[in-house]
C-alpha cells in the first residue's frame, strides 16, 4: 500500500510503500530524522 507522508517538522513530503500485514513501523523523516511524520489523508477525487 502506498502512503503519502509529510514531515511536520521540516515539511518534507515523500511516499512509502507499506505492508499492512507487517504492522506499524516507526516513521522517520529521511531529511530531518523527526518522528513527526504525518500520513496524509487520501485526496478525494
Amino acid at each position, binding site marked *: 500500500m502506498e502512503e503519502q507522508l509529510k514531515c*511536520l*517538522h521540516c515539511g518534507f513530503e515523500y511516499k512509502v510503500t507499506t505492508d499492512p500485514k*507487517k*504492522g*506499524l*513501523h*516507526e*516513521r522517520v523523516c529521511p531529511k530531518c530524522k*523527526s*518522528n*513527526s*511524520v*504525518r*500520513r496524509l*489523508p487520501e485526496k478525494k477525487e
Partner: protein
Amino acid sequence: MAEEELRIGVFVCDCGLNIAGSVDTEEVRLSAEKLPDVTVSVRNRYTCADPGQAEIKRYIKEYNLNRVVVASCTPRLHESTFRKCVEDAGLNPYLLEMTSIREHCSWVHLYDRESATKKAKDIVKIAVARARLLQPQHEMEIPVTDAALVIGGGVAGIQAALDLADAGHQVYLVEEKPSIGGIMAELDKTFPTMDCSICVLGPKMMDVGRHPRINLMDYSTVESVSGYVGNFKVRIRRKARYVDETVCNVCGKCAEVCPVVLPDEFQQGFSSRKAAYIAFPQAVPSAFLIDMEHCLGNKPVACAKCMDACEKKCIDLHAQDRITEVEVGAIIVATGMDVYDPAQLDEYGYTLFENVITSMEFERLICGGGPTEGHLVRPSDHKTPKRIGFIQCVGSRTENRGNPYCSNVCCMNTVKDSLLIKEHDPEAEIVVFYMDIRAFGKGFEDLLRRSRDAGVRYIRGLPGEIREDPVTKNLLVKVENTTTSRIEQYDLDMVVLSVGMEPKASLKKLMSVLNLSQTSDGFLMEAHPKLRPVDAPTPGIFYAGCVEAPKDIKDSVTQAGAAAARSSILLNSAVLKGEAIKAIVDLEKCNSCGVCARVCPYGAMKVDIKAKSGAQVVAAACAGCGTCAAECRFDAITMQHFSDAQVLAQIEAALENDPEQKIITFLCNWCSYAAGDLAGVSRMQFPPNNRFIRTMCSGRVDESFILRAFEKGAPVVLLSGCHLGDCHYISANHWTMRRADKLWNKLEKLGIRPERLQLEWISAAEGARFAQIMRELEEMRQKVTVDEMAYGRKVIAEQRRKAEKEPEVEDELTDAAKV
C-alpha cells in the same frame, strides 16, 4: 461524606548547589506558599538525606498534612524513598507528588537563573495542582499457587521442569506428542562435543518420568488458560492413547499383530511403524499407543488383533480423551520450533530427486538407532555415497521463499555432519556450499578447523540449481564460487539441504490461548529483548528454547534454567504485590463497545459485547499503561493515579500565565522522561520554555489533553514516548502513533496547523537528542503567531462546549474501533 480539607506540604530541595546554584529556591518556596491548599512550604538543603526526611515526617505530623509535594531530583531516582518516608509518617504513599527541579530545570538552565527560577515555580505549581487531586492507592496482594505448567517436552521443557521440580515446586509438563524428547531425541550427535544425543537426553527424560513432583501429561494439549499471574487455571486435553501406559510393559506384541503399516515419523519416513506403536525405543512414558486415525477402526471395532495379543490386557479401543484442569502460578512455554520444508524450492529438487535429503533426514540416516543402523546409504540405491554436498541456509536468510533470519544452528550442524561422514568413511568427498559460516560459540571454531583439516571443502556460493542424472540418480550441482569468481560444477551422489528453523505451525493457537505476541520473525516476543529475555510480556509466563528464537541445545538448556529460576522467584512468593496504577471502569458510562479490550496489550480488559454487561478489568493483569482510558470514547475508564482530572489540572496550571511562551511536553515515564533526566545529568542546555507532564506511557495521553493544551493557549505540544518496539507496555505506543495521526487530521479540519503537535520517540539513552528536540521546539514556538493561538483557543473551546451540550460521540470512530 464531607470532603477532606486539603493540607499540602511543599518541600523544595536545594540539593546543595545542584539546584540552588541556578534556581532561587527561596523564591520557589515563597511562591509555593501562595498556591491553593498549601499549608506549609519548606526549603531543605538535602531533602533525601535523613534530616530532610525527618523534617518531612515532622511537618506531616505538626501540620496534619494530607498531601506532600517534593520538588527536588527526578522521581525516577527518589520517588520510592519519599513514598516510604510519607508512609512512615502515616500517609498513603500515593499521596506524595514528586517533581524534578534538578534534571529538568537547574541542570539544563545553568546560566539563566531568572528563567530557571520562573520555570521551577511553574513546576511546583503543576505538582501542587496534581497533588490536590491525588487519592490514596493500594497495591493489590495476589496469592500465588505454588505449581508451574511447562508446555513442551523437548530439551528446554525437560530442563525447566526438572529445575522447578528439584526446587520443590509441583510441575505439570504437557507434551503434545506421545513421548517427551522433542527434536533433540531425533539427532544423532550434538555439536561441538559430538556427544550421542539420546545418550545425553535419555537420562533426563527418565528423570522426568519418575520425578515425584512432575506430573507428565504426554499426548496432551493446552485447551484454554484463564486467570493471571500467580493464579492461572489451565484446561488440558489428554488424548486417548488406547493403551494404559501405567500397565503396558512394552512387549510389542500389539505391534507384531497390527496389520496397518505406516511411515515412521521418528525415522523421517525412512522406515515403517504400525498403528500400534511406540514413538521410539527410549520414549518416556515407555508405552505403546494406538494411532486411531489410521487404525482399522474402533467404532465398531474392526480388527482388535492387538487386544487379543496383549497379555497385560491394557488396550481399550473405546478410551476417550480426558479433560484435566490444573491451577498453576507460572507457565513456561517451551514448544520448540518446526523445521523448514524445502519442497517449495523447485531448484533443489527436494521430493523430486531421491538423493536430495534434509539435514533432519540425514540425522536418522547416520544414527546408530536409525533405519540403516548407522550405515550411511543414499535413498535411491542404498549404496554408500562417496561424494556428498551440503547446501547451507536453505529457508534461512532469504526474503523471498523461506525466512529472513539466520537459523543459528545449521552451520555448526553441517560441520558436525561432515565430521560424522568422515568418521564413517575417511575417503568420502564432502563439499559444503555456504554464504557465511557462523562459528561463533565456544568450541565451534575448533570443530570447523577439524572439519577443514579432515578434507571437507567449503565453497563460498550457493547453487542455483540441482539436476539429476536419470540413470545414475547422481546429482549435478552448478555453483558460482564467489571466492574465485568461477562457475564450478560438481557431480555428487547425495545432497543434504541444511534446512533452517521456523516458528511452529501450532504456535498461533497457543499464542491466542496465552495472549502472547510474536516478533516480526514469527517467534514469541519477550518482555524486553535485553533485560527480560525469558519473560513474556504477560506477567507469569516465561519462555524456554526455540519458541523464542532459533537456538542450539546449550542455549536452550541455559534459557530453560533461566525460565525456571524466574518462575521459581514468582512461586516462592506467598503473595505478589500488584500494581496500584490501574484502570477502573465506570459501568454506568461504559457501553461495552470493546475498544478497551482491543487496545489493551495485556488482555486485561474483558468485554462481552453481546451481553452489553460492561468492561471488566482483570486487575492482576493490568499494567497501568492507560491506553484503554485514552481510547475510551465514553470516558468510562479512569486510570488511578493518572486520572484525566489530574493531567488536565497539570495542563491548566502550566498554562495559567503566559501560555504563549510555553511548550507542553508529554513524557512517558520509561523512555522520554528518562531521556530528559539524562540530558540533565549531562548538563545539556536548552531553552526553559517547556513544561513537562509525565505519564506512565505515551499511550495514556488522551486526545482531550492535547486539545486542552491548545485551548489554554499552548503554541506547541510535544507528544513523546519510547521508540516503537521498545514500549514498556509491549505495543501501547502504537496507539499513541495512531492517535497522533487522527489528531493531525482533526487539527487540520479545525483550521489549526497540524505542525503545532509534534511527535517524537526518544529512548532513555538519547539525552542529546532530547535537548536538541527542546531547542527545535523553541524555534517552532517562536513561529506560532498570536493570531493563530487565539484562533485555536476559540475554535477548540467552541467545539468542547458543543460536545458538552451534545454528548453524542464524535463524528468518527477511534482507530481502535475501526480495527
